[in-house]
């Protein structure tokens, strides 16, 4: 029997984006089913529809054979569907117990919360499922892997027979991933249907029974795991034999553009997030900072780009210490920043593409005179950039919010690379966007490098790091534990540094400041 089935489901979002087109998708009871596709293919939307978080524009949903109308997650949960989201949906100040019990709270008498029974119920369930949870700890104090287990428990305790996981491994260490997969296999044996979204194909091959591939909102096909190789999956995901066509020229080290010396930072919660970080970024190179999320990269970028204060140490540009300067001063010194969050930080959704493209230079000619803002020049300029960066948009006056993720990012990149910067700080520049845009942006970064600029690339995408960087620094728990040249690099070795199992000696690291 099919646990879940969608028939001709289409979903159009309020901003005009068609996320799902006539999707026909089904999952058998008790199987582990992977849904893959590149960013923007429509996987998350489909899952949100199955969980009742979005309503399809047209089409039918069937759960355990019955056609259903899902008006909210409440309905989905009642039918046995549970979802573990990529970005956890937990209340930070609540305990694990409170988060799990929210909405199904056991009561004492008519009105009061029965904390004791909460504890009992959860402990029993956890034993059944074979994992442990620190019930009375506040969720905000817990590591990511535990938070995910809380999310899974939330779904199971409500009687979920179908468990949907959205990119579950993206925030886990490899060890935690294995633990997760053990849990999933166990659940599958107990008859629970598992659907998970991922773009990590090695994991798909590891654990999935069947695989559905989506592309541009459509289902390309559903296959048994053994029927496809990884590269075949990629081909189907992209629609053609895709290989990144990126070639790098020789690395010629130039003068130092950015010198970071003994950068230390204690976060608001007193955590020692950056420990004596030192490195040099030179002209004509791409220096990558690799590492798993949560090892200090976010804070490092914010400090270097003037968005975070209270760090100590030195950040030298042309010999001057620029640590603590604000974005306008840093930009004037030629430092550009492609931010991690293109929506919250990188753009103004309610303004036009053209206006977004000049936000860092609007007060200078040709875009402004002494007082007057020259809209015509802005639009002309935007048109040029739109063509040069292949931004798929009807006109420069279209509102930014109408663009897809990849195109939005291209607008951001266009803005940041064209203000004659000397240093480009790119934070996850191709995160969450389609492969074609991704390739384009990587090529542009290489162009910057070839023309003598310095690019600091912060990325959790190893493929990206290996493709375009010249040197790699590995950040682990706030410290630089490795400094490698990107020549004949052993990926596994890189992995070890990222996991903290290996680190270079102080001797090897001393080179950092002298390269």
């Amino acid at each position, binding site marked *: 029997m099919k646990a879940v089935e969608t028939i001709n489901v289409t979903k159009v979002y309020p901003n005009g984006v068609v996320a799902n087109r006539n999707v026909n998708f089904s999952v058998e009871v008790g199987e582990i089913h992977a849904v893959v596709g590149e960013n923007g293919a429509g996987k998350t939307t489909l899952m949100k529809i199955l969980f009742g978080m979005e309503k399809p524009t047209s089409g039918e949903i069937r759960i355990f054979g019955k056609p259903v109308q899902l008006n909210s997650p409440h309905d989905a949960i009642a039918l046995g569907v549970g979802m573990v989201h990529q970005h956890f949906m937990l209340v930070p100040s609540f305990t694990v117990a409170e988060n799990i019990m929210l909405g199904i709270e056991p009561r004492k008498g008519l009105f009061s919360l029965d904390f004791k029974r909460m504890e009992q119920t959860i402990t029993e369930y956890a034993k059944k499922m074979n994992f442990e949870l620190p019930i009375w700890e506040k969720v905000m104090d817990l590591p990511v892997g535990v938070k995910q287990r809380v999310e899974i428990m939330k779904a199971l305790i409500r009687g979920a027979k179908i468990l949907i996981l959205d990119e579950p491994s993206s925030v886990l260490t490899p060890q935690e991933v294995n633990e997760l997969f053990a849990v999933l296999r166990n659940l599958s044996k107990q008859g629970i249907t598992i659907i998970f979204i991922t773009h990590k194909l090695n994991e798909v091959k590891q654990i999935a029974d069947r695989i559905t591939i989506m592309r541009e909102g459509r289902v390309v096909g559903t296959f048994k795991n053994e029927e496809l190789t990884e590269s075949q999956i990629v081909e189907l995901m992209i629609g053609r034999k895709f290989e990144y066509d990126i070639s790098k020229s020789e690395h010629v080290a130039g003068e130092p553009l950015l010198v970071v010396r003994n950068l230390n930072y204690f976060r608001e919660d007193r955590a020692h997030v950056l420990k004596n970080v030192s490195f040099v970024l030179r002209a004509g190179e791409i220096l990558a900072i690799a590492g798993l999320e949560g090892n200090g990269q976010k804070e490092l970028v914010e400090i270097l780009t003037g968005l975070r204060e209270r760090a100590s140490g030195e950040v030298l540009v042309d010999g001057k210490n620029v640590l603590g300067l604000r974005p306008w001063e840093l930009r004037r010194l030629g430092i550009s920043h492609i931010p991690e969050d293109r929506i*919250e930080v*990188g753009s*103004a959704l309610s303004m036009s593409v053209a206006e977004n493209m000049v*936000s860092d230079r609007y007060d200078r000619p040709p875009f402004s005179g002494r*007082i007057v803002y020259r*809209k015509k020049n802005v639009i002309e300029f935007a048109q040029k950039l739109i063509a040069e960066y292949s931004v798929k948009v009807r006109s420069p006056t279209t509102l930014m919010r109408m663009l897809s993720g990849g195109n939005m990012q291209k607008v951001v990149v266009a803005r940041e690379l064209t203000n004659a910067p000397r240093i480009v700080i790119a934070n996850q520049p191709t995160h969450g966007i389609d492969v074609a845009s991704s390739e384009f942006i990587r090529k542009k970064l290489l162009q910057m490098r070839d023309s003598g600029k310095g690019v600091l690339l912060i990325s959790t995408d190893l493929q990206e790091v290996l493709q375009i960087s010249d040197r790699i620094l590995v950040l682990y728990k706030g410290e630089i534990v490795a400094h490698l040249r990107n020549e004949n690099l052993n990926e596994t070795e890189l992995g070890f540094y990222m996991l903290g199992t290996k680190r270079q000696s102080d001797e090897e690291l001393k080179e950092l400041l002298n390269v």
Partner: protein
Amino acid sequence: MKKSLAFLEISRMIITILIALLIGYIFLLFSTKNVSEALKWFLYGPLSNQRRFVEFLNNSVPIMLTGLALSLVFQAQVFNIGAEGCLFFGGFGAMLVALKFPQIQLVHLIVTLFAAAVFGAAWAFVPAFLKVRWKASELVSSLMMNYIAYLLVLFLVNNYFRDKAAGALVSYRFPQTAWLATLTRYRLNSGFFIAVSAAILIGFLLYFTKYGYQIRVVGANKKFGFYSGINVGLTVFWVQLLAGALAGLAGGVELAAMYRRFVWQSLPGYGFDGIIVAILARNNPFLVIPSALFIAYLRVGANIMSRMTGLAPEVVVVIQSVMILLITAEALLDRFKKKLIEREAMRNE
């Protein structure tokens, strides 16, 4: 598709006005037997003779200026609604200068109005500073400043500037050199032209200068503004001061033209009307002109109705509040918008 969206916006505006007027009509039904008479005075009163027409235009002057003030802060997504207090304090400033400054023709008047603006800006300093320095809610602080302005100014005027010779609680008369001219025998407030010019200037500022671009970006996404290199704190600060100046000017103009004394014993309400004017104008300074005229028309219509039939004019406030709700209801006509977008998207498949 842009055209159909614009059409949707306009029809929304019209439907809103009609519904609001309908609700006003229902209120009238409940409060008087002679509804048609009341309605007649309400809808046609301001056009019925020249005097009333001038009254209508005059009424639009202070609210056009406060409407400008509020459209500015709303553009920056700052909820400073202290225009009332700034107007009151600005009026006080105008009175001070009118009474104390040497009586030089023309210069006196200019300095008086300038003082009104400066006092208005100064009054806006407190909420602006508290917001930028300590992130304190400008909504609550500006509201408090409204009450404080009222009490402070009243205390000062009634105790130190009161004209005991006059019958009521008013200040001394302004000397003639501080009078703002009124035109024709119906006393059209020449400040009307000041207000309209201000609207055009502010509109120009917002859409055609780099400072306006700054304000609009901060209003669209202040994180983005900061990251792009805009000094968001400074922008938020000055926009409130400029708004305060406009509101203060409104107070000065009103006193210097219509009363030539400080006459207010309670908050005149122009600051709050400004909120409605700004919202109706969708925060666009150019549209503040017709918006203020419209609200003034409703006000004066209600006043005339009140004078002629004895009904309380506050029914117009009911109409205004309904309008605010309906105009800013994003969900109205949302369904149509959604269908439009969906159809367009499918067409591109």
